[in-house]
């Protein structure tokens, strides 16, 4: 592992040199900047002697099937555009500095890298509207961006799209203590909202590992799921209203704070999960549940996957209304986390078990809930469903259990190259896929399975020291076909982004997708919002 860290350090320092030219050998950038690519190859060859090349060359990978060409109908930025934006937003909100562009052009996983030359930081809905109105008239492509924590390349440019980042719009507009309805701007970081609500005695209905960086606008645009979906439901249920700006600069004010409002078509649901391709979300009104005092968490071990399933059934029945999270990880995932992080220790060190389950209960009565949880755990143990387990005795222990589960994506990143798949499958079949993949890949790579068992959502990750097309061949399209065969979803919560733009047919019928394309054409006739993503490229001509 040390070797890998040294590699990445060296790579980062070389990155700034390489980025003057073309650092990556991904297809879409090649098509765009053919000439500079030639010289970059020389640079890479020179770097070969440093022995770090493989890592650099393969750091940005793209599946062969996402070979995209820049849409020639989009204009290129010129100095007039820059002057206009500077006049509109002020010098500070118009960024052309290469170092800052470097960060916003690259996604969290360092898998996708665009070549945008302009980052805009609007501070109000009006500014967003004017930006879009201008870009629409000039036919300039735009990428809406928030915390840039997306995992399917949906938050970064593919070519030179203008990045409209809403991070500066981070005000909490209002909070009603009686109803728990929070109205805030799209750039509010989830963790900040959680802290704010904590002081008021409420919690956000969603929680995810990326909470320190992800923003609520992005969460809503991708219909983020997270760890508490099993209890509080998805964002479609919790978002009461939103304000979005359409491609032509029209502002749709659907910022209602009403639980019930059956007046006309409920358009906000179109924007929830459309990944910025139908409009830029600028404000959100969300229903927040009250913070209940008694939270208990148990970390359990099971011998086989069928026990995990039975445990889930029993938990839903016996814990019922107090169950707030049901997560699982397999041995591979546990090993990875223990290996990659220093401060983390295995709560069940006696032996390595096959599966680990994390159960959290939230309720209002401490002793009642604790007894209920203990009774459930003890009876499950007696029935042989659990082989071992621990119950957190204080908040620190609880956080350490969550650290293990939430740390898996980070640990995968540190371990090298990772192929990430997020699938919804019938619970009985979920782990069969992991076993199948292990057989298929053999020694080529490590297959890690973890996820929201309570929602039937598997995060299948394949970890290898480096990206390698041989590995990719074995994974795609097998994973998608397998999922499709069981009528699952090829993207449970991560969305389609760039990674799965052409894959939607595995989970949706052709007619459905055609209707989606019609809606896109209606709301964004020039196709400037987040192009090349979400819907298949063949539909965009």
């Amino acid at each position: 592992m040390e070797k890998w860290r040294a590699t990445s350090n060296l790579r980062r320092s070389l990155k700034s040199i390489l980025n003057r030219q073309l650092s990556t050998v991904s297809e879409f950038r090649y098509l765009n900047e053919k000439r500079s690519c030639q010289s970059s190859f020389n640079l890479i060859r020179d770097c070969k002697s440093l022995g770090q090349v493989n890592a650099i060359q393969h750091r940005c990978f793209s599946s062969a099937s996402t070979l995209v060409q820049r849409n020639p109908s989009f204009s290129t930025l010129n100095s007039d555009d820059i002057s206009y934006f500077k006049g509109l937003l002020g010098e500070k909100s118009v960024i052309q500095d290469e170092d800052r562009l470097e960060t916003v052009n690259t996604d969290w996983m360092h898998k996708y890298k665009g070549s945008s030359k302009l980052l805009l930081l609007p501070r109000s809905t009006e500014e967003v509207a004017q930006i879009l109105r201008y870009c629409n008239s000039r036919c300039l492509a735009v990428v809406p961006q928030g915390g840039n924590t997306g995992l399917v390349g949906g938050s970064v440019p593919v070519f030179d799209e203008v990045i409209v980042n809403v991070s500066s719009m981070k005000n909490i507009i209002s909070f009603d203590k009686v109803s728990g309805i929070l109205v805030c701007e799209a750039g509010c970081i989830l963790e900040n909202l959680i802290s704010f609500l904590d002081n008021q005695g409420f919690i956000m209905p969603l929680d995810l590992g990326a909470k320190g960086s992800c923003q609520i606008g992005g969460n809503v645009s991708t219909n983020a799921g997270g760890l508490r979906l099993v209890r509080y439901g998805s964002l479609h249920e919790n978002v009461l209203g939103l304000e979005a700006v359409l491609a032509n600069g029209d502002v749709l004010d659907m910022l209602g704070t009403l639980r019930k409002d059956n007046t006309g078509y409920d358009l906000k649901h179109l924007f929830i999960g459309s990944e910025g391709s139908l409009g830029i979300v600028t404000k959100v009104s969300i229903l927040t549940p009250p913070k209940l005092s008694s939270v208990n968490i148990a970390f359990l071990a099971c011998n086989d996957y069928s026990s995990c399933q039975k445990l889930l059934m029993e938990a839903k029945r016996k814990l019922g209304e107090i169950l707030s999270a049901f997560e699982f990880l397999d041995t591979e995932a546990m090993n990875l986390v223990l290996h990659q992080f220093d401060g983390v220790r295995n709560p069940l060190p006696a032996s390595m078990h096959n599966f680990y389950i994390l159960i959290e209960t939230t309720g209002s009565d401490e002793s009642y809930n604790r007894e209920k949880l203990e009774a459930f755990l003890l009876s499950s143990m007696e029935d042989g469903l659990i082989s071992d387990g621990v119950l957190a005795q204080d908040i620190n222990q609880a956080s350490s259990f969550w650290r293990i589960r939430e740390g898996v994506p980070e640990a995968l990143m540190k371990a090298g190259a990772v192929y990430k798949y997020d699938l919804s499958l019938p619970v009985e079949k979920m782990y069969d896929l992991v076993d199948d993949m292990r057989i298929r890949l053999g020694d080529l790579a490590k297959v890690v399975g973890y996820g929201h068992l309570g929602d039937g959502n598997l995060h299948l990750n394949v970890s290898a020291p480096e990206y390698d097309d041989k590995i990719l061949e074995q994974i795609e399209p097998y994973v998608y076909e397998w999922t499709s065969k069981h009528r699952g979803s090829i993207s449970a919560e991560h969305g389609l982004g760039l990674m799965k733009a052409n894959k939607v047919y595995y989970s949706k019928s052709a007619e459905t997708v055609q209707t989606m394309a019609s809606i896109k054409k209606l709301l964004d006739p020039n196709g400037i919002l987040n192009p090349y993503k979400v819907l298949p490229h063949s539909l965009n001509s």
Partner: protein
Amino acid sequence: MKIMVAVKRVVDYAVKIRIKPDKSGVETQNVNMSMNPFCEIALEEALKIKESGLAKEVVAVTMGPSNCVDTLRTGLAMGADRGIHVEAARDLVPLSVAKVLKKLVEVENPGLLILGKQAIDDDCNQTGQMIAALLGWPQGTFASKVVLDKEKQVATVDREVDGGLETLCLDLPAVITTDLRLNQPRYATLPNIMKAKSKPIKRYTPEELNVEIKSGLEVVQVTEPPKRKAGVILSSVDELIDKLKNEAHVI
């Protein structure tokens, strides 16, 4: 040999502390409570010694109102064999705790008394030292390493002191108070939680033990520390000198 461990129920370490509006103390209603982290370390050390075969029994002791039994249950779930709960209406000051412990030691006759170095609610760091004085036992406080020698009946304790580490050799019976780096407390496993339900907890009252717990101290007021004021950005060295001279009065 028997080991006695004193544990205290305190506001959970991760909770944000609030003062009661009447300034009489810290808000403890509807707040998560748990075992004092240093007491967890003390109990872990006792359990380790028992597992290495040098002790036969670990007894956990707590004092306070009836909800303190929760902490005892945690201790039993971690692996203590028995619990003792001394019922008292409100929080006891270290001297009272030490007096009660002295009586319990006379009843139980442990070879080793382990406590956390201090409680995170009052930060007194007094109980261990007081009980050692009352009993006339040697004390090894701020322990970061404890090694027992059964034959010679001594405990070698590494203490964390300001200058570094000090190693003391204590004749048993002795009092040890634990510091942060001594060990990492174990989690309460389900089998142990199951067993804990049947482990005995003996109840005493201070009157039964003939201990006077009236405190000579009275808490007058509890307030928050003054809020840290924002810094000021100065524009020149002259302004800095002026402020240091006339406002801060340091030059």
